[in-house]
């Protein structure tokens, strides 16, 4: 696992709620490429992308439940591993 370089992605609605989320993801995933399209932000990353609750809370200045991602999520690609602290997208191969 974790050797794949195949792209995973996650896309969010472009709005005030997602600004800190996208900032946090960009900082935690140096290889992530953020593409802005009308009303939408798509984040592509080779192999693996990790979304960390703590980083988002830091940016938002409040507690954040990772399931809140659902509200502004548009789509994603990759296998998912989710627990209370991290939401990870990855490919095995």
């Amino acid at each position, binding site marked *: 696992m974790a050797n794949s370089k195949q792209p995973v992605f996650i896309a969010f609605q472009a709005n005030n709620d997602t600004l800190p989320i996208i900032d946090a993801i960009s900082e935690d995933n140096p290889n992530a490429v953020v593409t802005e399209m009308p009303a939408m932000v798509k984040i592509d990353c080779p192999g693996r992308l990790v979304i960390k609750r703590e980083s988002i809370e830091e940016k938002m200045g409040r507690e954040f439940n990772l399931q809140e991602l*659902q509200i502004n999520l548009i789509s994603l690609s990759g296998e998912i*591993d989710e627990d209370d602290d991290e939401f990870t997208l990855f490919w095995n191969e």
Partner: protein
Amino acid sequence: MTKAKKLSLKQNYTMLTKGLDWEPSYQKKEDIFPQLSFEGIKIHNWDNWEDPFRLTIDAYWKYQGEKEKKLYAIIDAFQQNNGQFNVTDARYIQALKIFINAVVGLEYSAWRGFTRLGRELGDASPRIATQMQAIDEMRHATTQTHAISHYNRFFEGMGNAPYQYDHAWYLSIPKSFFDDACSAGPFEFIVAISFAFEYVLTNLVFMPWMSGAAYNGDMSTVSFGFSAQSDEARHMTLGLEVIKFLLEQDPDNVAIVQKWIDKWFWRAYRVLSLVATMMDYMLPKRVMSWDEAWTIYYEENGGALFADLARYGIKPPRNAEVTIKEKGRLSHEMWSIFYANRDVVGFPLWLPSQEEMAWFSEKYPDTFDKYYRPRFEYWQELEDLGTPYTNSTLPQLCQVCQWPCLFTEADDPTEFVHRETEFDGEIFHFCSDGCHQIFEDEPKKYIQAWLPVHQIYMGNCLLPDADPSSPDFNPMAEAIRYMGIKPGVDGGLFKDHSDAKNWEKWTERPANIHQGASTDFVRKTSSQNSK
């Protein structure tokens, strides 16, 4: 009283899915779940089913509720501010007619299909996931109807969606797709819809097309689109989980699943041809071409998916290379047939403007100028002469996907595809190798197809008040009326259509931003009409 420690996400989900179910004691399991064996799929241990989202009922309602509040706040604001007049032009609105008449019916069919799965699957965890999905699908059908019904107050062709979905000739394409899935077994259905359709392909509708809706000022549609796709992200995850679960349960499942992936990728791709047209021709301001979207969402993202599944022995879908060869021509072939047959469709048609053709030349350098520009320029000459090009003969239909056999050979865009077979002494035609192969696998299923062209010729497409013995009986107009399309109102040339005229009257802006005003209601923005 000490406060109980909050359960973790994983514990909470395990309590719900493993703790609430029970083993039957006085009925046999195969009698309770009678649909689980006939497809040949072998399941040894349902406990291995994992839902990565681990969504519990309370969390589901909470987050869905929040999504709904956001969505309806936007829809309300859009409607209160006359948003329908703030989109780019009245051509954009024609795409919404395809949406309301084709996509909403698909969502509703998906609700039917997933409701069945919520009953039939052999474990609480997939039953809960599919039940949530069923509720999602109903939410999509209703929010789409709510959002678009506002447009229906102002524009034609959106007032009879469920009827059109069941009757209109070109809507038999999406309808038969979902009927095919709903009449398959539960495992085939979930592979078809959750994996092949949702995971591999729906991003094309809900990402670049919806982003295009936003770009053209339609905040209402983009909001329901993105809100639906956020559910879709969960559905796609379910689709991938299903595939992995089936492949890990038994090596004999691999060949069956591969066959379903091959079949449903092709079926879904053919349905999505409509989206190619909507992206390239119906968005006055464009975000990306169908060719680019297919490259990103199928070749790159789909490629990653199938690279990951290779470890199970799964190969990319059969005929995927045909879709790549077709991507430079699909939308152009499709728009051509709609234009030439515009009197029998539920929305008016137009020729691409100079500006749009220049964009096509840039985006489709290998195909557009060579094959399609000469056709559109010739048709423009005819339109200018007042004798627009019109086809009046019905097509040979594909027995499987029900598209007219309009597609051309993968390696030669100047040659129609001919694929034919015989079964039980009867002749059947197909649009492609993909559809031909699907037929050969289950001919007795597909001989049952209700093909609109044949039904019209049998005389079955008449409303009760039609009188074939009357001297002014017009069989084609009557068939169109039967299909829920108002002859002389819904189709035709865009510039003559009431939507275009009303748009200019109500907004004082051109109905087609690239061709200037077509009525003299537009005085403020068009110099040739100023007095």
